[in-house]
């Protein structure tokens, strides 16, 4: 009954979240002023560079002729603006900041193919196949990439450190994870990582992963895009620029707007520059936007933008469809469930530790950013010392998971709904020696099936995700009764934050 209350509450939360997601438009309405952000930065750089106002004038005049900014701001078409504004965050489905599925407290039934490029953090509550829940805090990271970051100090620059060195490239495919069990921590609040709370560690090696658009494998695709669609876009931009310049009033207009911007006090650029640029764009709209010749060129230009994005999206779709193959090793220190209902029948012997090797295969479908992804895991677990009947192999598992991105929730982000199923064959007693549950000696080998639905809700622009999962098991490892439970957690992909901290 305890579980049924939790399940009801979580079902309500899940239903509300899915309903909210489905009720939203597929693209949130972007703010027009966001179109000016990059140009404000470029203008500020031009204005604060050494030199006189006369020396800065050519730069300011040129920046005022960046028509993409005007099209982004003034276009009546929200979808075009949304395309030009994009998103300042990562939304890859294939990262796993949380614990591996063999760790108590994990909310993931399947392991994903990629780890955070730099560092990830997860705090999860639950337990998927065990009888009792666990609370796990997990740190995941990539040692080689962390060193590259320390050497360069910028996210973009760090990717380039050792990019041509095969040793660095091989090492950067290796990531690590360490988990601590918060339930056994003696700290009054939070967790105090120590040998007492250590619950497991993992190492993941990406055998095959070309999902990053920066991968050298895609260089020829990008060169081809620039040479074809890129040139066509530049041509349509040339035509639009020529149409604007044919209006004899434009030079005077640029000069007057440059005068205003050059006259701004240096110490208040942060406050006044965005307003000055927005006023310039509004002034352009009043003076030139509705000129028939410009409107005709604008129509061709926006068609050129859409054509370019469509061509580029085909390249991204090809990248996203490529498979990921990962090999994962995890070590889990076994401990008795904390509720004291399970006891060892031979208290003088300790529980053996567990080692698991998992092969992860991941494949994306067609359909761009919102295409689903399929993940398959095959794994085997063995004991660090023979079990009570002499066997070493604890279990074999096969897991299949489908991740489906939902519609974007305005001001929140893109939630993901996952469906997964696992077949687990327990070949030995789950804890490696005979145990008693509520005083009754049990021996549980055999097969079990586990099914999970998980909703991962992002917290906008923060790298934080909140996974909420429901898991049904045909039995648990210790109890031969069906079990339904809810799991919640919070994961944090530091890559998103670090990418913004330049």
């Amino acid at each position, binding site marked *: 009954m305890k579980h049924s209350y939790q399940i009801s509450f979580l079902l309500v939360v899940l239903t509300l979240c899915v309903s909210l997601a489905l009720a939203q438009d597929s693209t949130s309405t972007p703010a027009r002023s*966001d*179109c000016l*952000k*990059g*140009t404000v930065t*470029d203008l500020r*750089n031009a204005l604060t560079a050494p030199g006189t106002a006369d020396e800065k004038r*050519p*730069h*300011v*005049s*040129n*920046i005022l*002729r*960046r*028509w993409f900014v005007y099209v*982004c701001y003034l276009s009546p078409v929200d979808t075009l603006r949304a*395309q*030009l*504004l*994009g*998103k*300042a965050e*990562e*939304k*890859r489905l294939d990262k796993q900041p949380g614990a591996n599925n063999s760790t108590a407290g994990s909310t993931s039934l399947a392991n994903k193919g990629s780890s955070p490029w730099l560092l990830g953090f997860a705090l999860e509550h639950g337990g998927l196949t065990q009888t009792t829940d666990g609370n796990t805090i997990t740190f995941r990271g990539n040692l080689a990439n962390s060193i590259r970051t320390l050497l360069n100090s*910028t*996210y*973009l620059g760090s*990717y*380039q450190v050792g*990019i041509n060195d095969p040793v660095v490239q091989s090492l950067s495919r290796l990531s690590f994870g360490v988990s601590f069990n918060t339930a056994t921590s003696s700290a009054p609040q939070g967790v105090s990582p120590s040998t007492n709370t250590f619950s497991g560690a993992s190492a993941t090696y990406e055998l095959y992963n070309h999902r990053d*658009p*920066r991968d050298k494998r*895609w*260089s020829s695709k*990008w*060169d081809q895009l*620039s040479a074809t669609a*890129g*040139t066509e*876009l*530049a041509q349509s*931009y*040339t035509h639009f*620029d*020529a149409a604007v*310049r044919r209006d004899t009033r434009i030079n005077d207009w640029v*000069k007057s707007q440059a005068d205003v911007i050059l006259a701004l006090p240096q110490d208040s650029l942060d406050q006044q520059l965005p307003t000055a640029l927005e006023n310039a764009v509004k002034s352009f709209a009043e003076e030139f936007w509705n000129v028939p010749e410009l409107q005709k060129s604008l129509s061709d230009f926006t068609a050129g933008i859409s054509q*370019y*994005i469509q061509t*580029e999206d085909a390249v*991204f*779709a090809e*990248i*996203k469809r490529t498979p990921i193959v990962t090999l994962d090793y995890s070590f889990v220190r076994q401990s008795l469930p904390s509720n004291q209902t399970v006891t060892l029948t031979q208290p003088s012997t300790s529980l053996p530790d567990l080692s698991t090797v998992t092969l992860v295969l991941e494949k994306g479908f067609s359909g*761009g*950013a919102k295409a689903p992804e399929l993940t398959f895991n095959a794994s085997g677990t063995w004991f660090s010392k023979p079990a009570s009947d002499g066997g070493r192999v604890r279990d074999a598992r096969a897991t299949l998971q489908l991740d489906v991105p939902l519609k974007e929730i305005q001001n929140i982000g893109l939630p993901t709904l996952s469906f997964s199923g696992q077949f687990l064959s327990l070949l030995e007693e789950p804890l490696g020696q005979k145990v008693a549950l509520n005083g009754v000696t049990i021996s549980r080998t055999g097969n079990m099936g586990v099914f999970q639905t998980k909703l991962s809700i992002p917290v906008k622009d923060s790298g934080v995700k909140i996974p909420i999962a429901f898991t049904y098991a045909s039995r648990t490892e210790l109890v031969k009764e069906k079990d339904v439970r809810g799991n919640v957690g919070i994961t944090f992909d530091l890559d998103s934050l670090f*990418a*913004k901290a330049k």
Partner: protein
Amino acid sequence: MKVQPTGDFVAEPQENITFSVTRKGSPCNAGFDCQKWQSCTPVTSPDLHSKTKTCTATSVSGSQSTCSINVDFRNDSAGTYDPGDQYTVTITGSKGGSYTDTFTPPPTLSAQTYVFSVE
């Protein structure tokens, strides 16, 4: 090569003007459209981050030529971009003078037309 207060340029007859585009990240997705020059080299990619094109001005005084360069910050089909990313366009004249422009997102696509007149 000299830059005018209007932001347009003046080149000497038959001066070689080199346009170099460098992206902080990679790949360098830049497109070129150079019109009415005496000649232009194909776009070359010295590395993953940069692209270069050189055009030769005509020998006709007062003739005008243009070069539009567009830059692309999109990292996936959702339009994800890195806010710290940047393109730098450097224009160098073979007979002296250089000019540098920077492009920061958003928007995730941007461009500039550079206009040259022969002295």
